[in-house]
């Protein structure tokens, strides 16, 4: 983007002695446009244009790439190892480090007196989450774990043991939580979602292969037994050698205990409600079958 500084000043100093920058003396970078050319006619110079005399080379009828003269080719001879099989359907969790979280807090873009979740990250515009790329939320990574100092109530989609220890060492609370693509879409651009005036979606339960992760107390899963989580917190503190700080402040305690319902995606708003931006009001479902559908 716009660069100013030592080199810019030097260039501007040179510009002083040059003719006026005007419409007649502008040009694009050399090589900005790639020119396609016909290989047979215009490439090269001499009479054969570098293609030699006669045969498949000159006539562009060479065998296809990978053909080994009749021998079974490499790509058929060697068995397939499908590392990337079904990659287009796999869940992706774009990483976000503890250092970046700390930076957002220091810059005042994230308020630590409110619970932090995917919505908070997306609203800062410093984190990208798009369902087109199969993004399912944030993977909180360890970078900056040693210097992390905020006491927060955070909800992420994936976190390692070290990250959980870093948060809990400072007296914070971390939860791992699954959101289905519809919810991720609503949270990634919340203004766009609210303008559509559609009911807030009911969050689905995690798929079969993710259910174990989110019901494990070691991962602080949102479907785990709360008593197991208390035990896991103590165990992790012993493993990493820190003491879980006692929280005396009532308001802080209230913040740290705030938790969403497994079906809920926005704090304070329940699934099924319609937010009308135009009329500045909330419409709640009245029909019994709707209530039944959106019930947790």
């Amino acid at each position, binding site marked *: *983007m*716009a*660069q*100013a*500084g030592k*080199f*810019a*000043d030097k*260039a*501007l*100093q040179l*510009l*002083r002695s*040059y003719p*006026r*920058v*005007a*419409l007649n*003396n*502008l*040009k*694009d*970078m050399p090589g*900005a446009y790639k020119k396609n050319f016909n290989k047979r006619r215009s490439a090269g110079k001499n009479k054969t244009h570098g293609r030699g005399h006669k045969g498949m080379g000159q006539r562009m009828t060479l065998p296809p790439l990978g053909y080994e003269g009749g021998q079974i080719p490499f790509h058929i001879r060697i068995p397939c190892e499908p590392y990337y099989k079904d990659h287009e359907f796999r869940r992706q969790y774009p990483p976000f480090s503890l250092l970046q979280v700390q930076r957002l807090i220091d810059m005042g873009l994230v308020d630590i007196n409110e619970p932090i979740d995917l919505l908070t990250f997306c609203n*800062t*515009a*410093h984190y990208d989450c798009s369902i087109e790329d199969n993004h399912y939320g944030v993977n909180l990574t360890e970078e900056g774990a040693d210097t992390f100092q905020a006491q927060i109530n955070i909800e992420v989609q994936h976190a390692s043991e070290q990250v959980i220890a870093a948060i809990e060492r400072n007296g914070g609370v971390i939860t791992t939580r699954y959101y289905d693509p519809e919810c991720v879409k609503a949270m990634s651009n919340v203004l*766009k979602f609210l303008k559509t005036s559609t009911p807030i979606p009911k969050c689905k339960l995690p798929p079969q292969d993710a259910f174990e992760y989110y019901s494990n107390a070691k991962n602080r899963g949102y479907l785990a037994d709360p008593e197991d989580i208390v035990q896991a917190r103590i165990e992790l503190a012993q493993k990493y050698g820190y003491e879980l700080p006692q929280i005396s402040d009532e308001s802080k305690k209230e913040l740290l205990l705030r938790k969403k319902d497994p079906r809920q995606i926005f704090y304070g708003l329940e699934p099924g409600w319609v937010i009308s931006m135009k009329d500045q009001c909330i419409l709640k479902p009245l029909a019994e079958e709707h209530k039944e559908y959106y019930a947790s």
Partner: protein
Amino acid sequence: MFCPKHIFCRVNSQNLKNLFTFNAARKLTTTGILKAEDKTDVAGELETTSDPHLYVPDRPPLPIITSRQLEYPSEHLPSKQAWLDTMATLEDEKLGIVDLHPKIFGTYPRLDILHNNVDWQRKYRFIDYSFARSRAEMPGGGKKPHPQKKTGRARQGSIRSPIYFRGGKALGPRGPKSYFYMLPKVKRVHGLCCALSAKYAQNKLIIVDSLEIPKADQQFLEDLIDVRFWGFSVLFVDDSDIMPRNFSLAVNQIPHFNAMPVYGLNVYSMLKHETLVLTLAAVEKIESKLLQILYSAQKEDVKFEYNE
């Protein structure tokens, strides 16, 4: 009414905002809706003297302003400085010095970015109407011109074949065709910064306190620009589209001097005109708008599409 003694107060970096409030108040009095008698008596505007060339403004001793508080100053770069001129007098009188933001007025002059902007401004509104009829769209040509065989001539099927004189055009232009596309916002903002920096570096950027001139006189404006060597073409930019009356009447008669509000500022016009004249209020607005876009993390949401 033009009455400079009410305008100019002793200004330093702290009470700079007072200057703008004065300017705003003054503008209201001079540029409100014109009454019927105002229209008939243009010369009646002038209170002091009939000859604007000899006009002497009443103001405190110079310099009036020596620095300007930047809204978001750069931590590492010193601010750029420029003279503050006035258009109240014929001769060039420096009212003081103002600071300019280095990220806006000291950008690396990327000529390719300027080229991209100018190219886009030329293309996005251009519609190519050129059109040529194909052999199917031309009249006639249904009958075989001459028999297939035994005439000794080449075989032909239609007199509208592309190889015929007055035949149809093969693969000709099929207008109207739109060349609309949208340059990315980043490049548009970068282009504006580059153009302002290039103007500043080449001494073609003038900053004035306001566009007030003593009389609605075309000759006075031409003389003023001659005396100060501002060149053949000048672009005046003010913060809003309601400009001082005297100035508007004078500049309206001269085709190569143009006035523009900040919201119309663009790379093409800046490079087309030899000199760019900004009012202090315009500088303030340009800086705040460009810095806001430069430093916001918010992505461009609107997408422009053209479907043929």
